[in-house]
C-alpha cells in the first residue's frame, strides 16, 4: 500500500468575473508553502516516467525534491540545465499530455502539478535574480563585454526567427561560445510568445525577461529584418555566418474558403491577436493601432489559438462570445485547463458545428454565419472521429465579429527564396532528426518543420539542432 497521498494543490486564480475584464494573468502562481506541500506529494519514482514525457528531458523529480527541501536556487539550477525558458513553459506547456500524463499519480486523477511547480521555481528565480540584479548585471555586463571583445573571433551563426525555437538555439549556441545574430521580421522578438499568446496567459514582462536572459548570453537580436527580402540565406553565408538556423514558425493564416471571408469584421486569429498583443490595440485610443470587436463574436476553431481569441474578445468588451467547432469537446486540441478557464469565463461553445457561409449587410459588414450541424463518424487519419454533416440542419448565428482560428500553414516568403531547400508537399522544411536541411550549413526547427505544434516541441528540436550545428561548424 502506498502512503496516503494528499490531494493536488490548487493554483489560485483571479475570479472569472474579475478577469474577464482585464488582461492580467489568470493564474496567480503558488505561494512558497503551497509549492513545498505540492512537491512533497511527489513519490520520487525510481524509473521517472515523467522525465520520459518531457520533450527536453528535465530532471523533474530532481527539481521537485529541491523544492520539497526548500532549496529553490538548486531547483532553478536543475530546471535551467535543460530548459532555458522555464517561466514560459511552466505557463503554456500542455503538461496534461506530457510529463503529468506519465505521472504515476495520474491513475488517481491527481498527478503532481509539475507545470505549476516549474512556474513557481522560474518565478522565484527571476525575482531573486532581480533582487540581486546589481551584482548579477555587473557580471552579465562583464560577460557581455568579454563576448563582444571576442566577437570577431567567435564563429558566427545566424538564426532566422525569434520564437521559442530561435531563442533556444541561440541560447544553447551562445553558451557553447558562438556569436549569434537573430534576425526577426517583426519589430519585437519572441514569435508567438509575443504576438500570439495573450498576456492573461503569458505576461509579456515574462517573455521580455526571458529574451533579456538570452541576449545577456551574448546574443544579438536584429528586429525589422525580413529574411528572404532584405537578405537571402546565401547572403548570410557570404557575411561570414558559418551556419544558419531557420525558425520562422508556421505563420500563414488559413481561411475556410467559404463565401464572405473578406467581409469587414472578419479577422484571422493571427491578425486579431497581433493587433492586440504586438500592437497593443487593447490600449486604443491611447495607442494608435485599432481593433474592432462587436457585441457578438464568434471564433471558428478548437485549439489554443481559438480559445485565446475568444477570451481576448471577451476582455475587449464583447457581450457574447461563441466558439464554433466542427468536432466535439473530446476532440478539441486546446489545453484542458484553458478550456475550463474559458467555460468559467462564460465563453459559449457550439460543438459539432461547421460554418458554411458568412453573411454580410449592404455595407459589407459581417452580420451572421450560416452553419451546419455535424455528427461524429469513423476515426480519420488523426485518430479522431471524423465530423460528418447532417443534411438540412442549417442554422444561423448572428454576430458582429468573426475570428477564424482554424490553423496556420507554412509561410513561403523565406523558403521560396531558397531554391535548394527541400520542402514537403505542404511547404514545411524537410530535416533529419538533428535538424539538418537539404542545404549545406542550413538547419531548421520549430513549427516551420513540424507544422503548428508546441513551445516545448520547438525547444526540443532546437536543442538537438544546436549540438548538430556545433559539430558541423567544428568540422568545416
Amino acid at each position, binding site marked *: 500500500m502506498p502512503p496516503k497521498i494528499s490531494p493536488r494543490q490548487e493554483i489560485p486564480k483571479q475570479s472569472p468575473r474579475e478577469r474577464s475584464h482585464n488582461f492580467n494573468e489568470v493564474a496567480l502562481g503558488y505561494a512558497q508553502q503551497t509549492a513545498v506541500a505540492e512537491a512533497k506529494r511527489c513519490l520520487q519514482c525510481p524509473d521517472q516516467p515523467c522525465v520520459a514525457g518531457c520533450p527536453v528531458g528535465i530532471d523533474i523529480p530532481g527539481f521537485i525534491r529541491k523544492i520539497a527541501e526548500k532549496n529553490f536556487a538548486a531547483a532553478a539550477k536543475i530546471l535551467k540545465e535543460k530548459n532555458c525558458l522555464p517561466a514560459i513553459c511552466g505557463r503554456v506547456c500542455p503538461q496534461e499530455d506530457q510529463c503529468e500524463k506519465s505521472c504515476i499519480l495520474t491513475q488517481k486523477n491527481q498527478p503532481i502539478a509539475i507545470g505549476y511547480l516549474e512556474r513557481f521555481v522560474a518565478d522565484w528565480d527571476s525575482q531573486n535574480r532581480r533582487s540581486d540584479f546589481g551584482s548579477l548585471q555587473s557580471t552579465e555586463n562583464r560577460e557581455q563585454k568579454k563576448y563582444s571583445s571576442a566577437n570577431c573571433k567567435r564563429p558566427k551563426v545566424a538564426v532566422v526567427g525569434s520564437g521559442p525555437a530561435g531563442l533556444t538555439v541561440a541560447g544553447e549556441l551562445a553558451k557553447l561560445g558562438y556569436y549569434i545574430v537573430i534576425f526577426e*521580421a*517583426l*519589430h519585437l522578438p519572441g514569435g508567438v510568445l509575443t504576438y500570439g499568446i495573450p498576456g492573461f496567459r503569458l505576461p509579456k514582462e515574462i517573455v521580455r525577461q526571458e529574451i533579456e536572459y538570452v541576449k545577456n548570453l551574448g546574443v544579438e537580436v536584429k*528586429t*525589422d*529584418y*525580413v529574411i528572404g*527580402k*532584405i*537578405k537571402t540565406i546565401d547572403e548570410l553565408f557570404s557575411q561570414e555566418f558559418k551556419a544558419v538556423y531557420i525558425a520562422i514558425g508556421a*505563420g*500563414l*493564416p488559413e*481561411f475556410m474558403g467559404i463565401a464572405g*471571408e*473578406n467581409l*469587414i*469584421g472578419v479577422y*484571422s486569429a*493571427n*491578425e486579431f491577436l*497581433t*493587433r492586440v498583443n504586438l*500592437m*497593443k490595440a487593447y490600449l*486604443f*485610443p491611447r*495607442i*494608435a*493601432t*485599432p481593433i*474592432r470587436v462587436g457585441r457578438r463574436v464568434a471564433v471558428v476553431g478548437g485549439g489554443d489559438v481559438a480559445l485565446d481569441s475568444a477570451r481576448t474578445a471577451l476582455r475587449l468588451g464583447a457581450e457574447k462570445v461563441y466558439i464554433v467547432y466542427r468536432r466535439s469537446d473530446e476532440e478539441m486540441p486546446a489545453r484542458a485547463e484553458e478550456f475550463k478557464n474559458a467555460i468559467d469565463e462564460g465563453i459559449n461553445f457550439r460543438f459539432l458545428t461547421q460554418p458554411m457561409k458568412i453573411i454580410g449587410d449592404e*455595407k*459589407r459588414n459581417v452580420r451572421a454565419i450560416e452553419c451546419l450541424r455535424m455528427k461524429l463518424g469513423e476515426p480519420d487519419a488523426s485518430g479522431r472521429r471524423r465530423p460528418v454533416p447532417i443534411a438540412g440542419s442549417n442554422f444561423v448565428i448572428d454576430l458582429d465579429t468573426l475570428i477564424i482560428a482554424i490553423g496556420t500553414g507554412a*509561410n*513561403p*516568403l523565406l523558403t521560396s527564396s531558397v531554391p535548394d531547400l527541400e520542402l514537403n508537399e505542404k511547404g514545411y522544411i524537410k530535416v533529419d532528426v538533428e535538424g539538418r536541411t537539404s542545404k549545406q550549413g542550413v538547419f531548421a526547427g520549430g513549427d516551420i518543420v513540424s507544422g503548428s505544434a508546441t513551445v516545448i516541441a520547438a525547444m526540443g528540436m532546437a536543442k538537438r539542432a544546436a549540438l548538430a550545428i556545433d559539430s558541423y561548424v567544428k568540422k568545416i
Partner: protein
Amino acid sequence: MKILHKKRLNKETTLYDLELPEIAGKAEPGQFVILRVDADGERIPLTIADFDREKGTITIVAQEAGATTKLLSQKKAGDELAGVSGPLGRPVDIIKKSRVVCIGGGVGIACVYPIARAYNDAGSEVISVIGARTKELLIFEDEMRRVSKELLITTDDGSYGEKGFVTDCLKRLLTRAKVNLVFTVGPAIMMAEVARVTRPLNIDTWAGLNPLMVDGSGMCGACRVSVDGKMKFACVDGPHFDAHQIDFEELIARQKMYQKEEKVYASQN
C-alpha cells in the same frame, strides 16, 4: 533609420530621405517599407519612391492622411524613426514593352515613378498621365517628365494641365496611340476607373493596391484582396495585380474598416 532630409511638397504631402543602406541595397521598383514612427506606434506601409544604393538612402513620400502620417510629418531631418522593415512586396517584373502608360493620381504619382523610370531605363516608350485635385497638390512633375517621353497632366479643377480626371486623358490618348501596358497607382476609385477604360480594349493593366496592412510579411491576412475571385495577400503576392481581375469595391470597403476608430484617435491625440 535616420531622416536625412525632409521636404514639404505641398500642404498635405512630405518627402523624406531615410538612411537605410541595407534596404536601399535591395530595393526594386514597386516595393514598399513598413514604418513605425515611434515605439508603440502603428505600422504603416509606404512605397519606396526612390532609392540610392551608393548613398544608402531610400525616399518615401507620404500624404498626411491621418494620425501616423501626421506624426511622421512632425519629425525633422536628423530625427530617428522607431523602425523600418523592407523592402517588402514583389518587385515589378520589368519586361520591355514598346509603349507603356504610367498613371499616377495624388500621392500615387510618387509610387508609380520608380516603375515609370524602370520601364524608361529598359527602353520602353513611357507616356505618363498624372493627376491631382488642384495644381498645388500635383507632385513629382519634374521627376515624371524626366523618365517619360510624353507627360500628360490633369487637375480636377482645371487649375493646371487639362481639366478633368486622368481617365479622361487616358481615353483620348488611347484613341491616338497603341499602348501595350498600363500601370496605375493612386486612389482605389481611380485605379478602378482606369481598369474600366482599358478592359474593353484588352490592354494589359496593372494596379498598385493600398489595403490596410499590419505585418507586411504574409502572417496576418489584413491585406487580403480578391483577384480573379481568389484571395491574395497584397503584401506578399502584390501589391501590384492585374487590374482587370481586382475586386475594387471590396478593397474600397475594407480600406474604410477603421474610419470610426481613426476619427476617435484623431480627436483624442
